[in-house]
């Protein structure tokens, strides 16, 4: 029997080991034969022979199983080796597209203010003089209404020059308190390195009872907003003038490129102008029939934000559908 142990040891394939298994443990195998022969042995020896045979059977069984595991593992290894590939050939090429940085920035701004329980409002792009200018305290002869700056239609309507008409429409349709933002496309008749005839704005408006809304509130919300958009920056307010709002201010952040040391982007000033804001002019409230209210408003250019955040150098490139630019924002 021990010669089978040796055979198992020297076996080198799973097929060969199967042959051995049959030869040893099969119905006509050597073990079966040995047990059969045992029957003809004298009775007093039977117990001894049976014991020896059982021991031998266990020994053979474990040797066979061990060898089988070893051979199977080896066979698997070889099979896998044959399946080997050069993984470096397959560095992936991402086939995802990308959303536009301007639209993404717009969504981010919307999310911030809706989280603060502002409503989102929209209005038509083709506007009339009343909503775009007059109600905003921009008199008929104001330079900003010049043909040079505004796209007019032949029927005396125009393409809105800001999203402020949405504020007017919302105020005329509802009653205070109002907390809203108005995102959308706006149009100015200007086309050069730093201007495109269409761009995007978001304006915000808050109106409540007289005495409830202050300049200090306006500062507070904008500081929070600018930190959300630009991270850890300093925020500076400079008094300025917008025709339909007072008091007005322009808001700067410390330059995100040079951290305020002065560079090309901030024209060596260390500051970047990012938005305009104001306490709403009483004439505007008068135009929409509000009495005894107070409010603030602010507005920003989305392209400007997107260009600063993503460090995009050229405004016009944002409107060219150029995949070389867009694929950088996957």
């Amino acid at each position, binding site marked *: 029997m021990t010669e089978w142990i040796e055979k198992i040891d020297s076996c080198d394939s799973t097929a060969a080991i199967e042959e051995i298994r049959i030869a040893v443990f099969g119905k006509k195998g050597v073990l079966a034969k040995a047990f059969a022969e045992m029957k003809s042995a004298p009775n007093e020896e039977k117990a001894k022979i049976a014991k020896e045979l059982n021991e031998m059977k266990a020994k053979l069984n474990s040797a066979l199983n061990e060898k089988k595991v070893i051979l199977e593992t080896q066979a698997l290894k070889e099979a896998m080796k044959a399946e080997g590939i050069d993984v470096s050939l397959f560095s992936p090429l991402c086939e995802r597209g990308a959303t536009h940085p301007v639209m993404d920035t717009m969504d981010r701004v919307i999310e911030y203010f809706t989280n603060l329980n502002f409503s989102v409002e929209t209005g038509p792009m*083709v506007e009339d003089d009343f909503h775009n200018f007059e109600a905003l305290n921009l008199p008929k002869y104001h330079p900003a209404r010049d043909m040079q700056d505004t796209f007019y239609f032949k029927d005396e309507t125009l393409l809105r020059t800001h999203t402020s008409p949405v504020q007017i429409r919302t105020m005329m349709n509802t009653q205070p308190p109002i907390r809203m933002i108005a995102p959308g496309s706006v149009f100015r008749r200007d086309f050069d390195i730093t201007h495109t005839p269409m761009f995007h704005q978001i304006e915000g408006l808050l109106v409540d009872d007289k005495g409830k809304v202050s300049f200090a509130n306006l*500062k507070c919300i904008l500081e929070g907003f600018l930190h959300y958009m630009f991270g850890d920056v300093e925020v500076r307010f400079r008094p300025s003038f917008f025709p339909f709002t007072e008091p007005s201010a322009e808001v700067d952040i410390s330059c995100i490129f040079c951290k305020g040391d002065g560079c090309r982007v901030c024209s060596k000033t260390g500051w970047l102008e990012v938005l305009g804001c104001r306490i709403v002019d009483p004439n505007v409230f008068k135009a929409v029939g509000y009495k005894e209210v107070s409010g603030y408003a602010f507005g920003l250019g989305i392209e400007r934000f997107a260009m600063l955040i993503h460090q995009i150098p050229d405004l016009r490139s944002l409107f060219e*559908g150029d995949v070389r630019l867009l694929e950088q924002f996957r």
Partner: protein
Amino acid sequence: MIITKSWLNEWIDIKGKSGAELCKTFNSIGLEVDRHEVYSVPKKIVIGKVLECEEHPDADKLNVCKVDIGTSVRQIVCGASNVRADIYVAVATIGAVMPGGLKIKPVELRGIESVGMICSSTELGLPKLEDGIMVLDESIGSLKLGSELSQNPYFNDDLIELELTANRGDCLSINGVARDLSAAFDIEIKERPKAQIEEKQVGIGRILHLNHSKNADVDLMYKALKKSDFTLPLLLRLRLSMVEEVCQSAIDALLFYATYSSGVILRAYGYSAFPIEQEKAQITLAQDEDDYAVVQGLEKASTVGIVQYDSSRVTDEDEIMIIEASYIQPDVISRKMAEKKIENGPLFYRTSRGSEPDLDFGLEYCQELFNTYAQTEIYGGTLELRSSYEEKVLHMSIKDINNIIGMDVDKTYITQLLKNLGFGVLKSQTGQIVISVPQFRHDVSHDQDIVEEIVRLIGIDNIPSQAYSFTEKVHKNDASVFFAKRKHYRQRAADCGFFESVQFVFNERAVLQEFDFPLVEEKLDLLNPIAGTLDTLRSTLLLGLVEASSANTKVGRKQVKLFEVGSVFDAQRNESIKMAFSFSGADSVEGVRNNGKPNAIGFEKFVQIISNVIGDFELREVELSHGLAHPYQSAEMLVKGEVIGSLFKLHPSVAKKYDLESTYLCELDFDTLKFTLDVFSSFSKFQASYRDLSVVIPKSLKYADLKDVITQVQSAEVIRFYPVDTYESEELGDNMSLTLRFMLQSEEKTLEEEDITSSMDTILSALNKELGIALR
């Protein structure tokens, strides 16, 4: 508005403030600093006097000068054409280093020793004032020989350019800027010493008469002067060149200087420009044909607030000149200009933003300049015409002011601040303030304006932020849903490999017309487009995508997948939102997997990818109304029987025109896209069976027709069916074989062979009956 520190210092004492401090203050009070430059003359440049000046014996253009520089007399060779004896000059002495880096050393010029250099203004780093050397005069102070020019404040100055907002016409003068600084620093404006000017015995009324038909909205004031010749002093020339002003004559320059300093609009007329009646020149204020206020002489002399005509200027023959100060309210002149536009220039810029209304003050200042620099004889008295002006008075409570600002500001502080700005503060009750607005602040008309003044002078950065508290409100509306939906679909499109394009809402009318897209009605179209290629509103997103695809292909892109969500306009200019896709070139990225040879995008793959973005839809053959589409590869897209858009292959001739390979496009009504939450429906727990059916159909039969027939008769167990194979052969001729795969499943049990056969038989017999189709 350009100012210099020394000029400003004539009006307010700011000697102790540095240039940087001034800039910081200007920024914080809303006069934005655009530019800050420092002028300084190097050391060892001293005042000298040319005692003698003789031609160089060996050089035509050189002169040999003896120059007294206080401590000694130096011989200096000078090449300037305007050098002569008895003039005061700036002398660079030995050891001086000029701004350009030149170091002054004794030199020999054509055999003659020259010890030092007589300087021009540009050699000193100043603006150019004249050809040749800079001739000094007493306008820059006493000319003590040998004194260093670097000690002279006029030559060591800060130049600051301010960007003024449109409402601050009052700061378009040195006087006005000084007034704002006075409030910012709480320093009083300098009292101007009343000049002792001797006027002629003869009064102005003896030589001049002012006529007016009706009272126009203008203020005019006149003074008559004997004309005398004079040269503009150095200081004025230096300042005018710093503010980049070039004047035709010394008189013009002096008037400009007076206006720039005081803010009052001033001009000079020649006496001969007016008709003489009863020995008096007749000045007439009239309205011209455009309803502008004009000063009339023999001809139109000037349009008030806009322009002076050349014929009324002071001529060489004139012995008398008439100086006019004028004021017109900015809203009056702006409105006129809006109603009837006429040619205008820098003067209108001033008057439409608000010039200084105090004409007495301006005229007096002007008279003082003429007296000082031109020793002019002046006729006694003035002639004037005043429009009515109603003083604005505002009553406010300190509490309201503080509520708007959001912090407590003291009444005394407010009072002082407003007074410094030139406002009148009248007596009032406790907690109240009564303010009279000066005429030069036409932009201040209500409470908020006053608060704005206070806010800017306090400095917004000094107001502590304070959170606003509010009552929560549900704010879900159509707009918020729209933006959420837009974001959802934009993300899905990007996930499926499309890049988002944002295009202008403009298209070229001729191109829209060429491809038969709807056009905005002519009478509703743009009046003043910015360019021919952007001359109308777009009625489709597709053209923009085709153009962008073309541009991308031209720079070597082998696959261009774009999408846009944006507004389009119909003939009546109604706005709607569309979503459009384009897919051009290779159907996948090149790589090992496709042996570097990906297929061109085809109909099937395009439809598949669009459905990955927007969900299931069905296609129906359609003839599209525009000319971009391939006539035999166009389809309407339907969801639950409703048309949501169309998709098509780009017409080969259009593709050729735009240099595009295989290109597919799709445009959808964004509103029809689903944006609701999905609802669960139950599904069978029993095993599904599949059964294929190959039928022979005529090639002309549309699958949609066949599908309709099956849909009508299919049993409830037929869950889904779809085509899986087509086969054509010579043997089949005009017919083809089509294999359909059916998925069958029951809610109640595992289907048995007879159930399946019965379902399939029903379908087969209907196909046979309706379309004459049989099994292959």
